[in-house]
């Protein structure tokens, strides 16, 4: 099990800063003893506890101490958090985030990205390896983990590149990457075109129990495409990025996952056809999975009519039919992960001609609200416990993280969510270094109001 890295947002004081043994083995009497000696015990009261990993959904109190969830200890608390009308969720996990460090700190830093993550309700983020240099060596992973330990206010998990330099040619040293602590492999932002290289990557990764996550894009079909190939690309004269460019690689991954009986996770699925392929494959037991980003169910390709580069991402925004298919896939269990693909870019980089602008938008601070508003509130495709599962137990299971649960003894990573809070997103209030988002001024229902990481409040709505 890889350990995440973070520093505390607030400096800890008092005896609780000392190392303590694992609490799930501690007797109640011993705990009382500790509390008598001023150990901080926090009780979250009257919240609706939703813990999908334990199939739990009830109004109850939750206790934690010394960074861990503990068993109920009525009367022992030294601190109380009132969660009336709030949901008490395991800390949310985003498995697809571009932290931009090392090498691109003008776009984002580990410090700023994790602050944005905390403000979105996330206690854990999984960093993509397309940094500069690419995270294809133990040394770069060590650098990221060290920086995260000093500057991150939520847990940072690392991924390693599948291939050296993300070039799709030679395998990166997975053994060294595993020892350095990566939780998965991906060439995100790039896609291995050579099927033999991909096959050997998945086959070799299997030895280490690593999931290979793939950015699904057939380069020959997509070419210089920058938006969904359809009515709007014809109208605007912009090069099209056809659905088949994604589906071709999803199909490839299904065939390889089946052939090797090893897991492949398809990142940021955008096409309804991909959903169908994954659904069929999962039905016959293939170890294939997929994730969805909020923009792909909130916006369509018509957004590019204004040539605003904040509507340009890869894969591109598609059509209402794709949105319906993605939501069906989320609802029927075909797509099991929600994530942001948080991709910050400096304003001056995006403020150029549409075909020169980089792909990607920010997402950490509004993804929960967008998914909640669309999936739970408006379209009623899933219920709130399932939404939370897609952000906690599901990603934790995929990447074998000891997070995403409120089990006694688990790290006290907790997100308090107000599912009935109506709010409007203001990009100028963003904690990210970059504000490249098409969602400025959008209103949604629901958001995180407090984010607790290992028992410490990393962020709360003021």
């Amino acid at each position, binding site marked *: 099990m890889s350990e995440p890295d973070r520093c505390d947002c607030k400096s800890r004081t008092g005896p609780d800063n000392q190392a303590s043994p694992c609490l799930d083995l501690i007797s109640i009497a011993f705990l009382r003893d500790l509390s008598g000696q001023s150990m901080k015990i926090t009780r979250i009261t009257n919240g609706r506890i939703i813990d999908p990993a334990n199939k739990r959904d009830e109004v109850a109190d939750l206790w934690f101490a010394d960074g861990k969830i503990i068993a109920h200890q009525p009367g022992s608390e030294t601190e109380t958090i009132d969660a009336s009308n709030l949901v008490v969720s395991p800390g949310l996990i985003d498995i697809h985030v571009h932290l931009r460090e090392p090498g691109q700190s003008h776009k984002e830093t580990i410090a700023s990205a994790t602050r944005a993550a905390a403000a979105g309700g996330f206690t854990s983020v999984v960093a993509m390896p397309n940094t500069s240099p690419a995270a294809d060596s133990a040394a770069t992973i060590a650098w990221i983990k060290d920086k995260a330990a000093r500057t991150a206010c939520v847990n940072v998990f690392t991924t390693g590149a599948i291939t050296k330099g993300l070039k799709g040619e030679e395998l990166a040293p997975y053994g060294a990457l595993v020892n350095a602590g990566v939780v998965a492999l991906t060439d995100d932002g790039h896609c291995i075109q050579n099927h033999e290289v991909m096959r050997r990557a998945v086959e070799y990764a299997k030895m280490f129990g690593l999931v290979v996550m793939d950015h699904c894009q057939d380069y020959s079909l997509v070419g210089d495409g920058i938006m969904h190939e359809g*009515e709007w690309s*014809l109208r*605007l*004269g*912009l090069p099209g990025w056809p659905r088949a460019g994604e589906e071709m690689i999803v199909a490839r991954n299904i065939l390889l996952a089946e052939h090797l009986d090893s897991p492949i996770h398809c990142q940021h699925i955008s096409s309804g056809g991909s959903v169908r392929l994954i659904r069929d494959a999962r039905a016959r037991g293939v170890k294939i999975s997929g994730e969805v980003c909020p923009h792909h169910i909130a916006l369509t390709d018509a957004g590019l009519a204004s*040539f605003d580069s904040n509507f340009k991402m890869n894969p591109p925004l598609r059509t209402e039919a794709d949105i319906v298919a993605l939501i069906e896939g989320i609802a029927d269990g075909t797509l099991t992960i929600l994530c942001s693909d948080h991709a910050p870019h400096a304003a001056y980089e995006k403020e*150029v*001609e*549409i075909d020169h602008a980089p792909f990607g938008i920010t997402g950490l601070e509004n993804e929960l609200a967008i998914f909640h508003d669309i999936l739970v509130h408006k379209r009623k495709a899933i219920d709130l416990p399932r939404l939370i599962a897609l952000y906690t137990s599901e990603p934790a299971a995929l990447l074998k993280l000891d997070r995403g649960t409120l089990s006694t003894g688990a790290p006290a990573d907790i997100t308090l969510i107000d599912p009935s809070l109506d709010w409007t997103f203001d990009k100028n209030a963003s904690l990210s270094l970059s504000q490249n988002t098409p969602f400025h001024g959008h209103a949604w229902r629901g958001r995180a109001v407090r984010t607790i990481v290992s028992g410490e409040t990393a962020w709360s709505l003021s």
Partner: protein
Amino acid sequence: MSTWTRKDLTGLDELSAGEITFLLDTARAFKGVGERSLKKVPALRGKTLVNFFVEPSTRTRTSFEVAAMRLSADVVNISATASSLQKGETLKDTALNLQALHADIIVLRHSSPGSSKFLADRLELSIINAGDGAHEHPTQGLLDIFTIREKFGKIEGLNIAIVGDILFSRVARSNIFGLLKLGAKVTLVGPSTLVPKSFEKLGVRVSHRIDEILAEADVVNLLRIQHERQRKEYFPGLGEYISIFGLTKARAEKLNPSCLIMHPGPINRGVEIDSDVADGAQSVILEQVTNGIAVRMAVLYACAGGAGLPA
């Protein structure tokens, strides 16, 4: 009459039928200026126009330059190689510098779709789109429509065929948007790779058989076919293109005698159009060039000069 309130012309897709008609009517009033011995009116005296061509062009740039001169504007030409874009300056910064020089109008030719709108949204001066990638070439669309209207006295109900490389053609898009707004019936003709059926979502008809549309066409607008090296995965070669889609003499004979043959130029004689047909009685290719001046005068005047027709 519709009044013009825009400072920019970035495309015909965003204009109303009334706005398009206003520009056509204004162009008709300006057309006479070119036929005088003193080919100049003072409409834009004291205004500075920058022809900013990031993509090479001779015909369109010269047409804008002549149009501006006939309106008494001062004209500066800059090209990509002479501009600071070569030194890494962004398009926006270059345009802001031109604005700081108190230029009044930038005529922009650029390879990126949306580049004119990008500048129009960010600058106070007027931006005239002289072609943005495969998106639009609104003054070419207007001059084509102007030429058709001059010949037929109307646009509504006419059968207009546009033949060739539609997928990559900004001329085709501006024609489609403008003609549909004015009530024409538009048929796109060409190989299925360059004229996919999905174009019908824009409100046009798509045909892959030129012989089936010749008899009913009031106008055949032929687009330039790029050399086969640039489109090798789209069709097998020029020879096959000519045999299936070229306006040969035999095909031209099937046209209605009143049908106009148009081409935005530059023409490839013997490829999309037979050489004799290009020079024939039905061809209005050179009239299009002449009308281009009047249309561009109208656009410059509307965007930077003021409302109403010149006296």
